[in-house]
């Protein structure tokens, strides 16, 4: 597998994502432009002369057909211009650049926690299939999967911030602020991930080469560690990218529980304030990064699995 072939594969993956990305911009654009309510009213208020109103409508390009508006929006987007916030009167891109690291920090730390728990739990469950460690791990996973993350976050906040006073209640800034939201998200996500790790491991254990390894008298430990685990890890690597995207999306809720000034909080606040340019921009950036996670998953898979052909 040459580097060149891999590069070609990566480029191909990115190219196939372009139509989906375009679709996303169309959907976000349409959703917000067909929304009831006049954006001009939002900016100037109801008590203006018709001339001023027309002037602003004209300046925003709202008097033009929707298709023209969309192409203008896209050409601005490609130049990195996401418009101006109605509420804050400054570029949307500037606001997003401020907020994005907050979301990324939470997503990444939740991912680390999730995999640190899910990998051993899933493997132990698969290796001890249909015995108590399996039942224990999978019951735990089922309960974790069924918990709404925001409620779990509130429970953690109640016990560890209010009662034990180990961590700050909410806010952002220090590592201690990060612990509770990261665990709220990481633990619930570990439930889903552990189930996937388990089934991926079981898939491998069923293979002929595992039977061969066992029948030639290898110790069970060697069979699991050397033969099964290495192969089971291949699809799990893909999971990393997929879960990353998932966690970035999930941060919308938890940022609101713990008052973290990230993209998710920005989106909800802007919806309630009807600051549509911000909603639009933040939505596109968040979705694009989730898709980047998915592409990363595909690429990692190709790098790790020598059986994948790049064409």
């Amino acid at each position: 597998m040459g580097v060149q072939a891999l590069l070609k594969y990566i480029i191909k993956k990115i190219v196939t994502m372009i139509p989906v990305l375009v679709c996303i911009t169309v959907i976000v654009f349409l959703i917000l432009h067909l929304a009831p309510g006049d954006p001009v009213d939002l900016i100037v208020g109801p008590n203006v002369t018709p001339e001023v109103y027309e002037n602003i409508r004209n300046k925003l390009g709202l008097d033009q057909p929707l298709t023209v508006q969309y192409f203008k929006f896209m050409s601005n987007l490609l130049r990195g211009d996401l418009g101006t916030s109605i509420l804050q009167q400054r570029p949307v891109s500037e606001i997003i650049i401020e907020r994005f690291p907050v979301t990324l920090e939470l997503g990444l730390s939740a991912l680390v926690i999730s995999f640190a728990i899910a990998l051993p739990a899933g493997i132990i469950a698969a290796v001890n299939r249909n015995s108590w460690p399996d039942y224990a791990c999978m019951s735990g996973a089922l309960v974790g999967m069924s918990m709404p993350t925001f409620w779990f976050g509130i429970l953690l906040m109640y016990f560890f911030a209010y009662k034990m006073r180990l961590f700050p209640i909410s806010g952002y800034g220090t590592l201690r602020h990060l612990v509770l939201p990261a665990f709220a998200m990481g633990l619930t996500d570990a439930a889903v991930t552990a189930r996937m790790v388990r089934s991926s491991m079981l898939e491998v254990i069923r293979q002929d080469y595992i039977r061969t390894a066992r029948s030639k008298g290898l110790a069970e430990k060697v069979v699991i560690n050397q033969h099964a685990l290495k192969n089971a890890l291949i699809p799990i690597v893909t999971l990393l990218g997929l879960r990353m995207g998932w966690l970035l999306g999930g941060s919308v809720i938890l940022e609101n529980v713990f008052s973290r000034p990230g993209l998710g909080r920005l989106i909800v606040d802007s919806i309630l304030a009807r600051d549509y340019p911000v909603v639009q921009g933040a939505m596109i950036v968040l979705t694009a990064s989730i898709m980047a996670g998915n592409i990363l998953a595909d690429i990692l898979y190709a790098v790790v699995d020598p059986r994948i052909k790049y064409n």
Partner: protein
Amino acid sequence: MADNNYLIDIQDKPSSSFSDFRKRLLRSKGAVFGASIIILLIVCAILAPLIAPYGYDEMNLPEGLQAPSQKHLFGTDELGRDIFSRVVFGSRISLQIATIAVGVSLIIGLVLGALAGYYGGIVDFGICALTDTAWAFPMTLLAIAFIAALGPGLVNVMIAVALVSWAGYARLVRGQFLSLREQEFVEAARVLGMSDMRIIFRHILPNSLAPIIVLTTLEVPKAIIVESSLSFLGLGAQPPTPSWGSIISSGRSFIDTAPWISFFPGLMIMLVVLGFNLFGDALRDALDPRLKD
């Protein structure tokens, strides 16, 4: 999105009689437990006025922020409203989401998936592009986008949930149709001169029913979580409607002194979601025992 591996696995189900299936299902403790919770939810929702000791919006200021007691099983909120009664009435909203919103998304996904799988070609291409896009969005995020356009409110949340959860059905149904349309019995029907509609509804669809039912049992809990998340964020049901998500949200300000306000509705969400997940898993295993790992 990654939790849908079963969709692929489930397609060739072995022919097994209904009584076998029922026996396998009833033998599973998870299925029985899950089904009991689901039945309890339905009973709660239908008989809410009889079960709840107080009205969901009955205020009693002197009894505000009381801890759970015999008089108020789940305690009271700052306005003295009985949390137990509010939670019981809240089950109606979850049931509405489970039936109406998931039902509409099922119809959308069914129609699009059937069109794509049966006709193929350019129809398939267009629908697949749309499905992949909807699939790429995380459910909650897309639902929030729709709420941004439609405005907050329970009806809009239902529309949003329906509009974000059809992609799973479309993918499943398309796959089913792709594999079934090449089967001999479909070919035979075509040779006999049956119309496309008749072939789709009488021959292909009944054969893909089992996985659709399984998927529905697993889509319902997701929809309930999305609804409660949106209501929690203040984008869904508006006060005084007692959605479980909005009760949790209103309890946040009193979490230190009256944790029961947020605790009980969350517990209910967890139980109901757990019930559907358990039942769905058991249903899948009973429909196709080979899949049970």
